[in-house]
């Protein structure tokens, strides 16, 4: 346990500071995301040695997670899937001149969630990790389906419209190689489409390019926000009070969801937003620029990042691209994560956990003073800002896979996203379908194969049966409600 303080040596503190600063900087650029940012520094960490190198890598991870939300809030371009939900209310707050408040709340929420999840990581890591292994294909299938059905109605609009967007996302997720057999589907002989539609290209198009087109439709509109005074850069006491409950709810949800393999940070942010829509005292304002819509999802995705460390450090299983890069970093240093990590490399284990504490404090200290600088971006007139956003989107789309086809995907997604705005369709559920589609398909096919074609395998276990029952209730309730109302009206005298 005393090894926890190894993170406080000057060399390790410097490595942590460099990692969080670099992660924040790269995370702010749309497209690179935490995994891309971590991959960039892999060659560098080898020179630092195991403890300092992994501390720096972990710092990049946390920094990039936080930085990803900055572009969501300022220019409606989510740098990664986990920041998509933050864009819904964060960008609207920025347009109302509350970009600073939204960024500061995002920083505080990330800090609170990151710190709480590290404490939980330290206390429960080995025991909780075994829970993650209890999930088989049938449970994953039910979990993904439940997530899609429950979280689809984020925008609060028409239920069939949001479900249509989710299913459209599933359709798009089938482009490219199928997850089990490797059959190439729906590519129409386009070479660049074989790897599937890049999530980054679709997201930057649906959000960023569509935003540029929307700005072009009203070129004479004033800047997103006017210049604000220093004291208005930070959240008011009222805003902070409103942000605390969603922050705590998001932290708890995010940590638990982070234990589940899959795109947990993304799911956690969507779940948190869905919960706020139901329980928040200001739920009517969600979608219009409510601080709860930033605090909850930001806490959730950062807590999920902490939760995701448990299976990595305790079992050596990376469940997300970011933790897979962290695993690569560990293997590069001849450190094998798993049940024996604590016995064989106690300095590395506790040093990395200690660096999470220090990293969270550094992120807060680093980002709060920068809020004013970032918030100024929202005051730049769109005729100057939007052409720059367009090039950033193009670079992000291309750099994800070094694939020119992805630039076409971004352009098509941008035009579709702009048209969708006119039709009252929200792009967030489509993104959810695109992210969860491969997990849903893989787990369905695996469960059917395990059950030798017996579909009862899908609900054979109690958790899977419970989740599928919840799916049925969620789907049938809106259909049954009008019928029940009619029966009640007919019975009334």
């Amino acid at each position: 346990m005393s090894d926890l303080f190894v993170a406080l040596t000057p060399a390790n503190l410097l490595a942590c500071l460099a990692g969080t600063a670099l992660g924040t900087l790269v995370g702010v650029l749309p497209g690179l995301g935490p995994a891309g940012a971590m991959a960039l520094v892999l060659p560098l960490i080898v020179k630092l040695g195991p403890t300092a190198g992994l501390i720096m890598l972990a710092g990049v991870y946390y920094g990039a997670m936080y930085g990803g939300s900055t572009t969501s809030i300022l220019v409606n371009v989510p740098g990664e899937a986990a920041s998509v939900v933050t864009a819904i209310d964060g960008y609207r707050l920025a347009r109302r001149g509350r970009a600073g408040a939204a960024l500061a709340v995002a920083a505080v929420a990330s800090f609170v969630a990151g710190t709480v999840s590290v404490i939980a990581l330290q206390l429960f890591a080995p025991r909780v990790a075994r829970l993650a292994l209890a999930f088989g294909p049938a449970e994953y299938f039910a979990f993904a389906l439940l997530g899609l059905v429950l979280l689809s109605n984020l925008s609060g609009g028409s239920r069939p419209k949001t479900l249509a967007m989710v299913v459209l996302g599933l359709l798009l997720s089938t482009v490219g190689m199928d997850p089990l057999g490797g059959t190439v589907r729906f590519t129409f002989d386009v070479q660049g489409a074989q790897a599937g539609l890049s999530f980054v290209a679709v997201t930057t198009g649906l959000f960023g390019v569509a935003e540029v087109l929307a700005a072009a439709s009203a070129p004479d509109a004033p800047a997103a926000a006017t210049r604000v005074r220093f004291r208005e850069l930070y959240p008011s006491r009222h805003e902070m009070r409103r942000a605390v409950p969603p922050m705590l709810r998001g932290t708890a949800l995010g940590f638990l969801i982070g234990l589940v393999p899959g795109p947990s940070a993304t799911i956690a942010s969507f779940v948190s937003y869905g919960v706020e829509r139901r329980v928040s005292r200001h739920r009517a304002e969600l979608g219009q620029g409510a601080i709860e819509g930033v605090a909850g999802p930001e806490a959730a995705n950062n807590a999920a990042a902490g939760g995701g460390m448990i299976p990595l450090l305790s079992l050596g299983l990376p469940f997300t691209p970011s933790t897979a890069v962290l695993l690569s970093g560990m293997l590069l240093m001849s450190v094998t994560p798993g049940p024996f990590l604590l016995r064989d490399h106690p300095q590395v284990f506790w040093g990395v956990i200690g660096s999470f504490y220090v990293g969270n404090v550094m992120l807060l200290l680093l980002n709060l003073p920068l809020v004013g600088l970032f918030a100024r971006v929202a005051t730049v007139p769109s005729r100057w800002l939007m052409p720059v956003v367009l090039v950033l989107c193009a670079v992000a789309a291309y750099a994800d896979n070094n694939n020119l086809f992805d630039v076409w995907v971004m352009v098509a997604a941008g035009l579709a996203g702009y048209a969708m705005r006119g039709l009252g369709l929200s792009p967030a559920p489509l993104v959810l379908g695109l992210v969860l589609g491969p997990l849903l398909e893989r787990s369905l096919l695996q469960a059917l194969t395990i059950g030798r074609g017996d579909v009862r395998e899908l609900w054979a276990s109690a958790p899977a049966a419970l989740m599928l029952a919840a799916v049925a209730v969620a789907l049938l309730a809106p259909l049954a409600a009008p019928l029940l109302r009619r029966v009640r009206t007919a019975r009334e005298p």
Partner: protein
Amino acid sequence: MASRDRRLALGLAALALLYLAAARRYPPGTPAEPGPGVFPIAAGAALFLVAAWLFAVSSSAGAARPDERRWSAPVLGVAAALVGYAALLPLAGFAATSFALVAVTAWHMGLPGWWRPLALGAGVVMAARGLFVWWLGVPLP
């Protein structure tokens, strides 16, 4: 005349049918050994059902109009610039196409004068090259 939502539902249903027709190329396999066609068939059928639901619940009269946006000249100009950008990128490279994209977009969005769009284009290209290529080592086309 059908309402906008009904037209949307019909469009989604047509898309689902087209997708299902394309999905016939991939074998569904057997229940014990599901093939690559199973999930697309299920997803296409789901889209068709949701489209039918949307059609059923949307009224025939024009309903709410959440955010009608015109395809005005600046929007079409930026859209055309984007398509041109994607088409010319492999031929002319990042610097020339990005410079043109920024300048054309800025001009369509009302940046006054001729030199401001050009200066913005040049500045963005140089900054992007410096940041992504030289500093971060991210390859650009």
